């Protein structure tokens, strides 16, 4: 990941710290979800997860940023994002999590960054540097190795 993010990662800043904190919380979330998939329907899990996320974060942003609460011109794009990423995405993820180990599932989530970079290159014509290719190969290689060793 450091190779992919280079040279932006050259200086420690609040964004990187927030990103690392996010990774820790996400890993904790995956472990809890793995535990819950043993007894709870994935659809029910996603239902409550999105309920709490929507309720708590809407209250927080309303209290902090009550003006310009929503940008309505972009609502269709945000709706697409919510339905696909937070709807279908999490349902697939939790269904899969019930069948494989959380360690293997977490390793596969690194592919998200690679897909985004490849799409960024195809759709927006963004350049892919040697570091990015090298980092991408390491992520794919590490993912395959972790799954093979665990299985």
């Amino acid at each position, binding site marked *: 990941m450091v190779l992919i993010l280079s040279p932006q990662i050259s200086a420690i800043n609040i964004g990187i710290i927030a990103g690392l904190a996010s990774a820790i919380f996400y890993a904790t979330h995956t472990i*809890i979800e793995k535990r819950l998939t043993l007894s709870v329907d994935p659809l029910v899990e996603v239902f409550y997860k999105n309920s709490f996320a929507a309720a708590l974060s809407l209250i927080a942003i309303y209290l902090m940023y009550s003006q310009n609460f929503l940008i309505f011109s972009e609502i269709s794009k945000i709706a697409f994002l*919510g339905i696909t990423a937070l709807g279908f*995405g999490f349902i697939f993820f939790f269904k899969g999590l019930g069948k494989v180990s959380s360690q293997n599932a977490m390793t596969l989530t690194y592919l998200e960054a690679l897909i985004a970079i490849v799409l960024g290159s195809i759709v927006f014509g963004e350049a892919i540097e040697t570091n990015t290719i090298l980092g991408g190969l390491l992520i794919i290689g590490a993912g395959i190795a972790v799954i093979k060793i665990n299985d």
Partner: protein
Amino acid sequence: MEKYKKRGYAEIISAVSIWGINSGIIVKKITTPAFYLYPVASLFGLIMVTLALFKNRTLSQIKSVDRKLTLVIVEVLIFLNNGSF
């Protein structure tokens, strides 16, 4: 068992691909501040999941969701208290 695992990997890769597509294309096309993005998007995700959840379910199955919520809260509280399940 092997087929069951393969299906699990396929589901996780599908989820990760959807996230990658969204972060690679959709998020870059949105100028709404990131702070608003997740809460509003999660609301749409909630609507979609709610529709899927209540489709073709009996009243007794819907009622059992409440009991499962209790289980989820208890699990999280145990985790926060003990650091393990």
